């Protein structure tokens, strides 16, 4: 169930009336005339000064509210630009914010209800100790701030028809995509539904969306199990099986720390029901780091030294090279660039990819580190 299915979209676009092409031709001509006047800038550069959220602009959003959730988490309500397309609950959005003057992009799950009357969307961010973007968003962002956005993406979504029995296993900020789902599928929490949410957090106060979840549970619409790890210890598959004895009968969506997700995947695979488990990771599982090397970007001519643990994407950005990026954890392929020569190591598997001159092997820079000298086309 991916969004923006091409056929769906074209089917719903009304046939253009004959006036439309004439109008749009006129608009194109006006635009080209404007370009003649603004060169070497573009008309958009001037329009951005007054109307950064207009249709046709690079996708941006304006933060309209920052609502504290727990002591280290907050929900940011964002008015997206006119070209924002409706997302599917459970998906995430990439947001670019300027932290200390430096543009940084991170992915955050959408937690808002679709089609809010005010047209806004929301994300909920948990500040990670030492985390640059998360701390900035939670503690130092003020309403009015302009941020940069991408369209929503992600596969952590529900099928249609909805499962009769669902289980959501979350930990920490992993509750966010699940909250985005629960808020948009009232069917999951009506009287006939059988939905279980198992959430783990250090204490009751650390549960993001705690009161909202507890109201749903008190009304008998979901079964909520909170595991407070400060007192009850970490959640593990055995503990989970004890809490939810019928988990094999359920379709399960899990989001949380890498360790938890891996344990769950193993457990589900061992039980032969791996196809009933859907997981969402917020960061890649890094297994190895080897020797680094010199990375050369052939287009810009930039050369930099990168250690074997730093993704080439991060190394390039620190050196001021503009490189494409996406989820930053190896799932979206938004960061792919051709490896012209040399070797890189996949940080998740340790696998080394080599290219001889002329090859141009496509590599994901966000999860690849230099494994010796390498040159990348960009």
């Amino acid at each position, binding site marked *: 169930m991916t969004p923006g299915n091409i056929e769906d979209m074209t089917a719903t676009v009304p046939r253009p009336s004959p006036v439309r092409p004439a109008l749009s031709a006129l608009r194109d001509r006006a635009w080209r*005339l404007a370009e*003649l*006047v603004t*060169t*070497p*800038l573009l008309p958009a*550069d*001037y329009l951005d*000064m007054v109307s950064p959220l207009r249709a046709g602009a690079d996708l941006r959003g304006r933060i309209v509210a920052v609502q504290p959730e727990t002591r280290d988490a907050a929900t940011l309500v964002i008015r997206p630009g006119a070209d924002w397309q409706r997302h599917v609950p459970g998906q995430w959005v990439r947001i670019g914010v*300027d932290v*200390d*003057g*430096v*543009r*940084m992009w991170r992915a955050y799950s959408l937690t808002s209800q679709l089609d809010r009357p005010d047209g806004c969307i929301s994300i909920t961010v948990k500040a990670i100790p030492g985390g640059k973007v998360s701390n900035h968003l939670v503690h130092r962002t003020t309403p009015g701030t302009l941020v940069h956005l991408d369209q929503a993406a992600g596969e952590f979504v529900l099928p249609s028809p909805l499962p009769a029995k669902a289980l959501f296993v979350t930990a920490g900020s992993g509750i966010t995509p699940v909250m985005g789902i629960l808020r948009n599928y009232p069917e999951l929490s009506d009287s006939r539904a059988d939905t279980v949410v198992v959430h783990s957090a250090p204490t009751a106060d650390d549960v993001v969306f705690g009161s909202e979840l507890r109201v749903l549970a008190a009304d008998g619409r979901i079964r909520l199990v909170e595991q407070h790890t400060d007192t009850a210890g970490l959640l593990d598959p055995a503990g989970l099986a004890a809490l939810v004895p019928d988990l094999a009968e359920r379709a399960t969506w899990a989001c949380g720390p890498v360790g938890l997700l891996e344990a769950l995947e193993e457990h589900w695979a061992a039980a032969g029901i791996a196809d009933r488990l859907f997981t969402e990771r917020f960061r890649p599982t890094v297994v190895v780091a080897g020797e680094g090397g010199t990375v050369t970007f052939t287009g*810009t001519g930039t050369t930099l030294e990168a250690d074997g643990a730093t993704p080439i994407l991060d190394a390039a*950005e620190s050196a*001021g*090279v*503009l490189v494409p990026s996406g989820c930053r954890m190896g799932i979206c392929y938004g960061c792919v660039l051709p490896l012209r020569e040399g070797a890189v190591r996949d940080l998740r598997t340790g696998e080394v990819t080599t290219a001889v001159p002329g090859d141009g092997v496509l590599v994901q820079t966000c999860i690849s580190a230099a494994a010796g000298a390498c040159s990348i086309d960009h």
Partner: protein
Amino acid sequence: MTVLQKKDVNPIEHLAPEDVELIGKELDEIRQGVIDTRGEADARYIRRVIDVHRKIELGSRAVLLASGFPPAWVLGTIGLSVAKILENMEIGHNILHGQWDWMRDPKIHSTTWEWDMASPAEQWKHSHNELHHTYTNVVGKDNDLGYGIMRVDEDQPWQPWHLGQPLWSFVNACFFEYGIAAYDLELAGNLATKERRSNPQFRADARAVLRKIGRQVRKDYLVHPLLSGPNFLSTLAANFVANLVRNLWSNSVILCGHFPEGVETFEKKSIDGETRGEWYLRQMLGSANISGSAAMHVMTGNLSHQIEHHLFPDLPSNRYAQIAPKIRDLFDRYGLNYHTAPLPKQVASAWHKIIRLSLPNGWLEKTNRRNLPSQLVTLYRVTTGKPKVRRRLLKEMAAA
């Protein structure tokens, strides 16, 4: 540094090689200090300058739609001149240096920026950032030294055609952006032989320049005047004047940077195996600053801090003023001359040098009101004389 050592007073005679490396280390520390503190305030600064430029540019062009009305013409022309200067100097030059790349904003990045200038950003970056900043003031390597058309050092043999140097320097100043485009293209060299003329890279570059010029010219001399309707001609004139003002201004600022009397030039051989400290030292001795108000610094794109800029070409321009006292202190401690003076003085000094070097060595120094007639006769003879005569006369003039 052979050229320096030949001078009567060698400005670096008192420095031991260890001193030079210590200077380098101190400069590296100053540089790191700025890098460690680059942040939101700097980002706000450049965005603000860009915003102000766009408002002035748009406002002036709007006012010029009524350019038939003299006050509108004056106001619009002043505004547009200021806008064009800001755009080229504090914004374009510095962004193309990569001074703002650390912000990772694709809209303010050296790889995406294009400017209001005949030379396309790509070509200018090559000749300016890679050649001029690497080979600063090395005669025969740094084309910025006289753009290949001038005599910039006593050691270059004088030729009669150098007499025209003040004139074509002035013409070059008026049409500076085209001069730069021509020299980024290495036009003279590339047109010289048939083989070089038909080099595909040169042809592609030349086409890019022509396209760029086409767009600029169409904007300033066709579309904007047309939009002014009955004021076509007066808007065209306003745009011409604004371009002229911008060209003369940027040429003056650039002359001040490396041309005033007392700024050192270097020999090709002198930079072989140059250490980082020596490289820094060459930048220190080969650049000159302009003193003045904050507004003047912005209008020169902070090239008024040419010394700081040449030491650290990729640090944000708004920081040069901040580190200038430290740099000056370093000059003082190592007994070096921190070359700085107000704009009129530096411009006059640069032009004095242009004129002095257009004449045979020693001629200007020795000429006064009384001996002017006889000096003119000598000049005539050296200009028209056979090579042998010329060599003898040049030697006499330089010796006396």
